[in-house]
């Protein structure tokens, strides 16, 4: 049934006041630390990303100043290395990814017809991890210990021998800290799109932006884990001398390159997809028509998401990989141009079939076409192995990547900012400033980077700070530097325009672009709760602004004083239950501080104190779970006449459960990456086979068998506990599961005691890493067992209330699977 009757109309002002009391942030500085609202967090992400963009831009100007002449004396070599490394790292990790996260967090509930993201506290945690991690990385520049090995941190340049200072540690630990925000956002975006859409909005009729963000989130879940694993392995080598990348002890520097580019190339598409989503949203509206080829674009997204994971080796064409393998990746690199071209032609066709209005966002879109297409074409050139060998590591590649990233991300995102700015600020822009900024940026960009292709073809390598013997490079470099300054002026003017609009622009009227999507079905600026009542099929577009404001949609107001939003079936959009979301709390910021203490202690080299940071984090995580259950059954909630839905405490397939599955997909990719490392080093690395295993075989075998048996029993206990959750037996099974879980952990400690010294050979280090991975998950699963046991003993289980048991089951099954696989791998190594 999709024809849900409307609720009775109410006074819009009354609803607004009622909702604002529940959804608004705390006032003042307290509000900064306690807000979990997606609107606030999303805007903060975007504002912070633009601050980091400005810092990265200043660094770019320093680079251009240094290279303007042959013997630039502006920066010495050591500082120049730090500057170009920080420029790349800031732009990729502290600007591009967080900006898209911020846009997604801010926008998604609005276009999907929800009141907030699925996990508001996770949004806030992600923001503070990003803020603290990013600030640490930037401050390292001030203290002269910034990373200096290039934004890809290649080994052996970044190992302890060649980078003895903390420069590389800042990158490895800082970026990993920041990546927590990326993983949090990926889980949030996935679950929100799948479960928090408007009632009866099927996946196949979602706005294209939601498809793009779903593709982005899926790629982030799979794409970031290899880099996270690589960073952990390299930090383990730097801190404890575990030789994953040391050739003399069975390691291989190419493993780092594989793990890095397994992330690095999909990263380009992770950045591009949300920008393309903005293009697919803006182009039809400013062309006064509908998008051409909705289905073809969704299929193209599907193709891009997969194919982008088959290209990573094209960054490694010159490292000595056999020709056949090069050909696989060369072909995939050429093929990926097809789905990209499908989208480009769909956008061009849309514009051709409509009447294009050259307003400011459309100017940036024209800038996108003129830039990204060129970057794509040079990308196809670089996908061809013979050309790649010639152009590798030259300024040609620098020019190509800037055409792709600025064309494919910056121009569309500037279009997006100007597009949604009236909704953010409630004000209309001051005419003329934006257009001037656009032309300065466009001319400055092409003046800087078009000629850089020639500089590269003339042979100028990347990452050099002076070129006294090559006068032929001087004129093109000088031209790049001059236009680089023009571009910087353009960005400064863009920022000035935004500030002026925010402060002095006239009030914007509703839906100023006459867009059809739900995000414009609300007053401007967007209120803290988005919709006074949630959209139904009757209220599915921007014209529904008045009925929704009067409470005629679903779940009108906040009569129970809770932050409530609708949860739907993932495929059909059928209303399933009502989620009660977290209110303002300081828990996320304290959790970020706890996580940061671990990274800080590691960075300071206080390795034996670092576990204190982990303990602090576990304590905070425990507190997160404390508010996730209730001690009594709650009545169903009136959503609409004749439609009552249970609160999420009474459901198994909650947002949290879907989130756990999404998290385990990412977690499983970390494990798969670790298995890739085992396979790669076993097959490719020199100095194998490893020296004979010297462990005490029989006790090890017993410990392994006991751990696995105990772990399998926990899975059984969790299933029984869930099966009899309403009966007193549940507490027996949760306690039995908890005890078995602890026993399995103890057995793993026994295993660890019997391992060979991980510093001896990469095989031993890999085994220790496998065991460490299993042990970390054992701790998490044991904590969940403890939480389930507490739930059983505090009346949080009932006929419908399951407490933490479903999550416990899920994590424990995962723990058992990875432990068994790890054991299988070790046995296979011994037998084969």
């Amino acid at each position: 049934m999709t024809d849900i009757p409307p609720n009775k109309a109410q006074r819009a002002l009354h609803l607004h006041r009622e909702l604002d009391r529940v959804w608004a942030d705390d006032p003042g500085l307290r509000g900064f630390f306690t807000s979990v609202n997606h609107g606030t967090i999303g805007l903060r992400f975007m504002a912070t990303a633009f601050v980091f963009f400005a810092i990265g831009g200043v660094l770019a100007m320093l680079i251009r100043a240094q290279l303007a002449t042959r013997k630039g004396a502006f920066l010495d070599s050591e500082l120049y290395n730090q500057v170009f490394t920080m420029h790349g790292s800031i732009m990729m990790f502290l600007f591009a990814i967080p900006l898209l996260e911020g846009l997604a967090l801010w926008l998604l509930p609005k276009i999907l017809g929800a009141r907030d993201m699925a996990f508001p506290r996770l949004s806030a945690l992600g923001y503070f991890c990003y803020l603290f991690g990013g600030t640490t990385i930037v401050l390292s520049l001030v203290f002269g210990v910034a990373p200096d090995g290039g934004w890809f941190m290649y080994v052996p340049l970044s190992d302890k021998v060649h980078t003895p200072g903390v420069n590389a540690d800042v990158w490895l630990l800082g970026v990993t800290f920041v990546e927590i925000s990326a993983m949090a956002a990926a889980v949030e975006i996935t679950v929100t799109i799948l479960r928090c859409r408007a009632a009866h909005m099927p996946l196949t009729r979602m706005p294209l932006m939601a498809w793009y963000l779903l593709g982005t989130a899926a790629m982030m879940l799979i794409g970031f884990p290899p880099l996270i694993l690589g960073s952990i392995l390299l930090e383990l080598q730097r801190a404890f001398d575990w030789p994953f990348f040391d050739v003399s002890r069975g390691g291989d520097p190419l493993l780092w390159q594989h793990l890095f580019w397994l992330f690095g190339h999909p990263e380009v598409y992770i950045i591009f997809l949300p920008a393309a989503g903005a293009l697919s949203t803006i182009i039809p509206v400013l062309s006064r028509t509908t998008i051409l080829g909705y289905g073809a674009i969704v299929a193209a997204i599907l193709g891009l998401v997969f194919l982008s994971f088959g290209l990573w080796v094209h960054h490694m064409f010159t490292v000595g990989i056999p020709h056949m393998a090069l050909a696989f990746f060369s072909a995939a690199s050429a093929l990926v141009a097809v789905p990209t071209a499908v989208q480009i032609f769909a956008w061009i066709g849309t514009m051709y079939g409509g009447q294009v209005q050259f307003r400011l966002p459309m100017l940036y879109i024209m800038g996108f076409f003129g830039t990204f297409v060129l970057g794509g074409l040079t990308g196809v050139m670089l996908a061809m192995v013979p050309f790649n060998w010639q152009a590798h590591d030259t300024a040609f590649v620098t020019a190509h990547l800037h055409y792709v990233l600025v064309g494919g991300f910056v121009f569309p995102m500037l279009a997006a900012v100007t597009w949604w700015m009236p909704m953010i600020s409630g004000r209309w822009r001051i005419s003329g400033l934006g257009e001037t900024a656009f032309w300065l940026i466009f001319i400055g960009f092409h003046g800087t980077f078009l000629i850089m292709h020639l500089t590269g073809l003339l042979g100028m390598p990347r990452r050099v700070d002076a070129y006294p013997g090559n006068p032929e490079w001087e004129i093109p470099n000088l031209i790049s530097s001059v236009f680089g300054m023009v571009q910087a002026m353009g960005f400064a003017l863009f920022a000035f325009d935004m500030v002026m609009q925010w402060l002095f622009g006239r009030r914007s009227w509703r839906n100023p672009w006459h867009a059809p999507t739900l995000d414009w079905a609300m007053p401007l600026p967007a209120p803290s709760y988005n919709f006074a009542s949630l959209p139904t099929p009757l209220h599915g577009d921007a014209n529904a602004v008045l009925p929704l404001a009067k409470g005629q949609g679903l779940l009108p107001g906040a009569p129970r004083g809770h932050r409530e939003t609708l949860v739907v079936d993932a495929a059909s959009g059928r209303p399933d239950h009502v989620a009660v979301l977290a209110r303002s709390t300081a828990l996320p910021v304290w959790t970020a501080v706890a996580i940061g203490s671990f990274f800080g202690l590691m960075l300071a080299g206080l390795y034996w104190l670092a576990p204190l940071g982990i303990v602090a984090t576990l304590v905070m995580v425990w507190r997160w779970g404390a508010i996730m259950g209730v001690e009594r059954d709650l009545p169903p909630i009136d959503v609409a006449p004749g439609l009552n839905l249970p609160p999420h405490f009474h459901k198994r397939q909650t947002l949290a459960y879907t989130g756990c599955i999404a998290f385990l997909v990412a977690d499983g990719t970390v494990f798969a990456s670790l298995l890739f490392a085992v396979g790669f080093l076993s097959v490719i690395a020199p100095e194998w086979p490893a020296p004979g295993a010297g462990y005490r075989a029989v006790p090890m075998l017993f410990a392994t068998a006991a751990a696995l048996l105990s772990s399998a029993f926990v899975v059984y206990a969790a299933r029984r506990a869930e099966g009899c959750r309403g009966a007193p037996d549940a507490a027996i099974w949760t306690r039995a599961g908890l005890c078995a879980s602890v026993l399995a952990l103890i057995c793993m400690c026994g295993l660890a005691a019997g391992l060979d010294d991980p510093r001896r050979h990469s095989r031993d280090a890999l085994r220790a890493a496998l065991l460490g991975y299993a042990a970390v998950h054992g701790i998490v699963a044991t904590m969940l067992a403890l939480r389930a046991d507490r739930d059983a003993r505090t009346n949080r289980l009932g006929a419908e209330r399951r407490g933490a048991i479903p999550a416990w089951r899920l994590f424990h099954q995962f723990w058992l699977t990875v432990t068994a696989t790890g054991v299988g791998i070790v046995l296979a190594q011994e037998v084969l």
Partner: protein
Amino acid sequence: MAWMVRALAGPVLWATLFSGVYALHGLGCARGWQQQPVLWGDLHHMALWALWGAGLAGHVMLVRTMPCDQGIRRWLIVAGAWIGLVSSAFTLFPVTILSTCL
């Protein structure tokens, strides 16, 4: 969600096949399979051809057995199946002609 799984089947099979062929290529080079003659070729090429051929057969099955769905869902299922087939055929065709470990 069954239609979504079906639409993803082709690309997932490509990803699996691509990873499998790349892994088999590395393993064969490490074990010296290219120096072991089998029929008119060598063990390495035979193993790669067999895996690629089996994967392509799987793709063809996906393309030929379309579920009864309609509208954009059917379109996505068809598109997904063809994306998988074309990707596997194009990105892995080097196994047919190139030397393996040079």
